[in-house]
């Protein structure tokens, strides 16, 4: 009974990603899309919190949004997976519900 959480805003602009991580259950997936992908980068003030979460939820970033923002694979945090649009659809289909953290 897992949830797919989507986050589409930069974690440096508002609290949506932090609130999402605080409510996600073990085994859930957090998918960062649009400006949300800035949360997937290493070397940020959020990096430690993100790495700590990676052990209990799947952290995924949408590759086209990473590409658009010039976030290279080498800059991603350890434990972040990436996916494409088809993978996004598969994630939505394979979880019991989707929750958008607007």
């Amino acid at each position, binding site marked *: 009974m897992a949830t797919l959480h989507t986050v589409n805003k930069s974690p440096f602009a508002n609290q949506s990603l932090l609130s999402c991580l605080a409510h996600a259950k073990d085994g859930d997936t957090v998918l960062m899309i649009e400006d949300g992908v800035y949360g997937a980068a290493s070397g940020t003030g959020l990096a430690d919190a993100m790495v700590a979460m990676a052990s209990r939820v799947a952290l995924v970033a949408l590759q086209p949004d990473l590409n658009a923002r010039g976030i290279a694979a080498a800059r991603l945090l350890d434990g972040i997976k990436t996916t494409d649009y088809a993978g996004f659809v598969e994630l939505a289909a394979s979880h019991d519900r989707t929750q*958008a953290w607007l």
Partner: protein
Amino acid sequence: MEDDVKKFLYVNRKAPYGTIYALESLEVVLIGAAFDQDVSLAFLDDGVFQLTKSQDTKEIGVKNFSPTFRALGDYEVTKLYVEKESLDERGLTLDDLQEIMWEDEDDDYEEKPSIRIVSRAEMADVMADQDVILSF
């Protein structure tokens, strides 16, 4: 409850007047109430500001929709989950929120409070228990 009844949760995370999200959420809740589903509302982060007392929008030119929350009971929307940590972070307590009641027709029409204060962990459980989550 019938088998085709689904659990719907409307998640409110925005303050009431800076954006249109809060008003739109309430509109959708009222529309959705016509479909006899099992509806709950969640208020967390800045969403808790939607429920505060004494809102007066006369001088900002927008509708004060806060009294509408008190009508939700008439639409059988009787579960308003409010996150305690979000209240605490904003210096609010239950006393700062409107009193929102519903009449329990199965209990001699006794008036019961709709607002349920829950911890962040309990809110996560509420979310994980839904069929459909609509975010605003």
